[in-house]
Each structure stands twice: as C-alpha cells, then as structure tokens.
C-alpha cells in the first residue's frame, strides 16, 4: 500500500494495525464500538492493549474504507488472510458490476455523519455536478470545515444526534 507520511502502524505482537488518515471518512464506527482501542482523544489514538486481537479485527473489518487495515505478524496466518482478501475483492468487483440497479445505501451514524455507499452523483446548490462517487460521508452536524463532507469536526463540536 502507498505510504503517506501521516500513516501510522500499531502492533500488539500478534497483528499490526495500519492507519491511513487520508482514507478516513469519519464514519465513527471504530471509536463508537471500541473506544478502549480506538480513542481519538488519546495519543497514540490506537491502544493495542485495549482489547483482544479478535475484537480489534472485528472492528477493523467494519471500517467502511481502507483507513484501518491489519496484517498478522505471523506470515502463515497472513497467507490465509490474503486468500480471504482476494475472495473479498472478487466479491466486491462483482458487486460493483451488479450495482447499477442496487439502491444506494445511506446510513445515519449516531453523533456522526451520513455514510453513503453505492453509485451516486453529488450536485451543488446551483445545479452544478460536483462529482460521482461510490463512498463518502456527508456532514450533518453543521460545522465541518470541508462542506458538504464530514471532516471529523462533529466530535470536537460535541454533536449529539439524539435530541
């Protein structure tokens, strides 16, 4: 994977977690589900001792982008993972092909953005077509500095969606 100077990795001896901030769409899944490991208030923000390996993997698999990925430190186990990934990629490709008539999924995240997956077009208020995408998150807290997209500011702003 292409390394960016902001990319980080963290290990617990068993697996290594890779963090690519440029790919994060702030879906908030990681820290909402496993704050013991993924705590944006802490430095480093990933604490590999916060939960068992299988729980960390479970949450990484829920990350909607490649912002969080992992590898086993044991090369034998990694081979299994690679096979699994190949399977996932071919599944994703055939999914993409069939996607023209699959509804776009809009997921409202608690205290966070709208996470959108599928084939869609974003149009500005003047009717100008901004871009076509297949995955993004739109701000719903009102204060992102990268409108209309979520840039994670909802957390600092203390946005609560439950009232």
């Amino acid at each position: 994977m292409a390394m960016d100077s902001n990319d980080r990795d963290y290990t617990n001896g068993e697996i290594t977690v890779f963090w690519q901030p440029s790919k994060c769409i702030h879906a908030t899944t990681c820290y909402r589900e496993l704050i013991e490991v993924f705590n944006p208030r802490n430095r480093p923000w990933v604490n590999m001792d916060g939960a068992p390996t299988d729980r960390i993997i479970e949450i990484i698999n829920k990350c909607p982008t490649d912002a969080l990925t992992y590898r086993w430190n044991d090369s034998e186990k990694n081979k299994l993972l690679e096979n699994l990934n190949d399977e996932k990629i071919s599944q994703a490709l055939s999914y993409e092909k069939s996607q023209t008539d699959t509804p776009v999924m809009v997921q409202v995240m608690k205290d966070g953005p709208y996470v959108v997956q599928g084939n869609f077009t974003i149009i500005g208020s003047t009717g100008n077509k901004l871009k076509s995408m297949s995955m993004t998150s739109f701000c719903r807290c009102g204060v992102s500095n990268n409108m209309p997209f979520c840039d994670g500011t909802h957390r600092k702003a203390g946005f609560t969606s439950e009232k």
Partner: protein
Amino acid sequence: MMELIGRLVLRVKNNFMEKSKTEFIIIKNGPLHVKGNFTLKGTDGKLIDVVDEVYLCRCGASKNKPFCDGSHKTHGVND
C-alpha cells in the same frame, strides 16, 4: 381501467428510478436533498421507510433528525 393505467405509470416510474442515477443535492445553508434509488438506515441500523426523495438535516439543529424541519433558517450551516 384507470387503476390499470395507474399501475402501469407506477411501474414505468419505478423502472426509470432504478436505472436513473441517485443524486445528492447540496442545498446551500440548508438540507441534503436525496433522490433516486436509495435506502436510508437510521442510527439503530434499521431501515427508515421513505419514498423517492428526502431532505436530510445538514445543520445539526433539526428536532426531527435525520430529516430537515426548517431549523437551519435560524441555525445555519458552515457552507
């Protein structure tokens, strides 16, 4: 007969919707207008029943989240 025509029109419309692009229209200092073929899932992960289009709150102040209720007029969006 009328009913039949009604259904036919509905069919044609649904077919069109399926093939047409799903659009997210950003309304300046207002909501997110979503139209086309999409599903909406709430914070509890359950599907929310909607028709072909919705206006989703972008200002954070709606009392009827995730939908826009007009509160943006006094609250504003960082657009």
